């Protein structure tokens, strides 16, 4: 049997490790358009910040392919999938047949059409090559001030990295609030305040209308509202959209991402999709949607991998979650943390002087979301309650008070947690 995986990141690793946990004989082939060994994209902002060197970007050891008996075809791009013939074609002219195929093509950065976007000094920040290009630019040009387009997770992480490098940063966000997809108004304002304390200029309800040049490279931007800001570089960190074109052309069912079931199967036989490209079940919103985060990518890859070698491990669903930091103050958004008050029960407490904030969202006595700023200790206890849809009616007072302890959990669930997940009582 031959398994072909298109992609070489968290999803591919999750799939390979899960395949080899259950099966030693299947032939596994990874096809990736990047020339690199497996590296961690979320670490790129740490690399950009100068916190880690290039070698630490490696997500798995250099012997990963050998150890897992994987053939890696790097620097080649799959350009077509023939689901009926069970065959893929690559840009180099090669073709590979498969018994099972996993599409793990991730996402690509969204760049709103902007005059000047092709200028030298304009970057996106998704891949290692993006980070390398930016670092070279920073070394070879005088860069003092950077405009970051996007005040979401990506824009935020890029901004934090640039500030650590000692650069001036202006963040431009279309929405009225930064991090509005993850945080509520209060938490967003806290992060805004922290960034501003760190010297970051923030423009909300605004966008870059045009990028201007001098001597062929970036010299400034004009905002939608007419303001002109001088800068030496522009980085788009707006977000990513699923790389689903291959699947669309192959006739698979695709909405925003490739629609998959609880085993990550697509609408075509023997064809799976997982990770940022997939539209999988989200248990908090109770529907399929794309959630481009690392833990979901790895888990979905593992579920697909297992199923491809005959092991059924249905996905209970993922949830949106992320961590971000502003000036050393961490913030977490778990599940539907910014659900509107009124429609849901919300418990919140803010200590502005200590930069701590906690917002818990409940629906029918079950936690469905949490936002934590400053104080993040043991946050996973909330995540566990959300994922396992635990009724906390009888333990509300302790759990909601912020004294987060296993002793505040319902007995049965506490026993389950103490035994270890996957180890049943």
């Amino acid at each position, binding site marked *: 049997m031959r398994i072909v995986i298109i992609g070489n990141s968290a999803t591919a690793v*999750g799939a390979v490790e899960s395949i080899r946990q259950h099966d030693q004989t299947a032939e596994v082939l990874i096809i990736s358009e990047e020339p690199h060994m497996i590296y*961690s994209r*979320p*670490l790129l902002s*740490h690399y950009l910040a100068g*916190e*880690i060197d290039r070698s*630490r970007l*490696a*997500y*798995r050891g250099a012997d990963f392919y050998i150890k897992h008996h994987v053939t890696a075809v790097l620097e080649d791009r799959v350009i077509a999938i023939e689901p009926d013939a069970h065959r893929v074609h690559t840009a180099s002219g090669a073709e590979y047949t498969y018994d099972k195929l996993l599409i793990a093509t991730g996402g690509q950065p969204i760049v709103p059409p902007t005059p000047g976007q092709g200028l030298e000094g304009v970057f996106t920040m998704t891949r290692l090559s993006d980070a390398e290009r930016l670092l070279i630019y920073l070394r070879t040009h005088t860069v003092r001030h950077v405009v970051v387009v996007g005040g979401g997770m990506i824009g935020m992480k890029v901004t934090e990295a640039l500030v650590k490098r000692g650069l001036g940063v202006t963040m431009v966000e279309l929405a009225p609030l930064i991090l509005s997809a993850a945080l509520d108004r209060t938490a967003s304002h806290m992060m805004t305040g922290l960034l501003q304390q760190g010297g970051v200029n923030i423009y909300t309800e605004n966008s870059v209308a045009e990028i201007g040049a001098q001597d062929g490279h970036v010299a400034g931007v004009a905002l939608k509202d007419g303001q002109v800001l001088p800068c030496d570089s522009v980085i788009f960190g707006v977000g990513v959209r699923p790389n689903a074109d291959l699947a669309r052309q192959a006739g698979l069912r695709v909405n925003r991402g490739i629609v998959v079931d609880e085993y990550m199967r697509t609408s075509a036989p023997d064809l799976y999709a997982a990770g940022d490209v997939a539209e999988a079940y989200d248990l908090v919103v109770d529907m399929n949607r794309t959630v481009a985060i*690392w*833990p979901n990518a*790895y*888990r979905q890859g*593992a579920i697909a991998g297992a199923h491809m070698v005959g092991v059924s491990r249905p996905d209970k669903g993922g949830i949106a*979650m992320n*961590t971000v930091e502003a000036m050393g103050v*961490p913030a*977490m958004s*778990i599940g539907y943390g910014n659900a509107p008050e009124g429609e849901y029960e919300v418990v919140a407490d803010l200590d502005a002087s200590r930069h701590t904030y906690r917002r818990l969202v409940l629906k029918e006595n079950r936690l469905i979301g949490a936002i934590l700023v400053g104080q*993040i*200790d*043991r*946050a*996973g*206890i909330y*995540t*566990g309650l959300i*994922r*396992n849809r635990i009724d906390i009616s009888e333990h509300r007072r302790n759990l909601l008070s912020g004294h*987060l*302890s*296993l*002793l*505040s959990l319902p007995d049965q669930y506490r026993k389950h*947690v*103490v*035994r*270890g*997940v*996957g*180890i*049943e009582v």
Partner: protein
Amino acid sequence: MKRIVIHEEYCIGCHLCEIHCLVQHSSSKDIIKAYRTERSHLMPRVMVEESGPISFALQCRQCEEPACIEACISGAMHRDERTGAVICDESKCVGCWMCIMVCPAGAIRQNLLGTRIASKCDLCYGADVPACVAHCPNEALTYEEIGEEGEA
């Protein structure tokens, strides 16, 4: 593999497990030296949960499907090939706290004393008996071979 089993009914809340955990993870392995000179960057990887008269010592539960490994962006969190234990390679950890966000037991903590790292139990890497178990005066922690169907 062997796991640390918690016996809530025997825990007397003495916190000796925390002290011996810290010593075990010091470079001197000497309680006086560890507390005098190394404490500034060390913290115990076991914590005593207390509420009124009830207490128990908690460390990483060694999940079969560890959410921390799934969520780790650096590859630091991994299953040790030799012992099967879930451990954090502190030389790879960048302190993003994704593991803290997903650990259902809340057994991973931020260590901000030196370089930022996620701090968790490593079963005293390769030891016959982890220090917290060995030094528990009332057998409130035991080290036992339990699988998926095991009881304890």
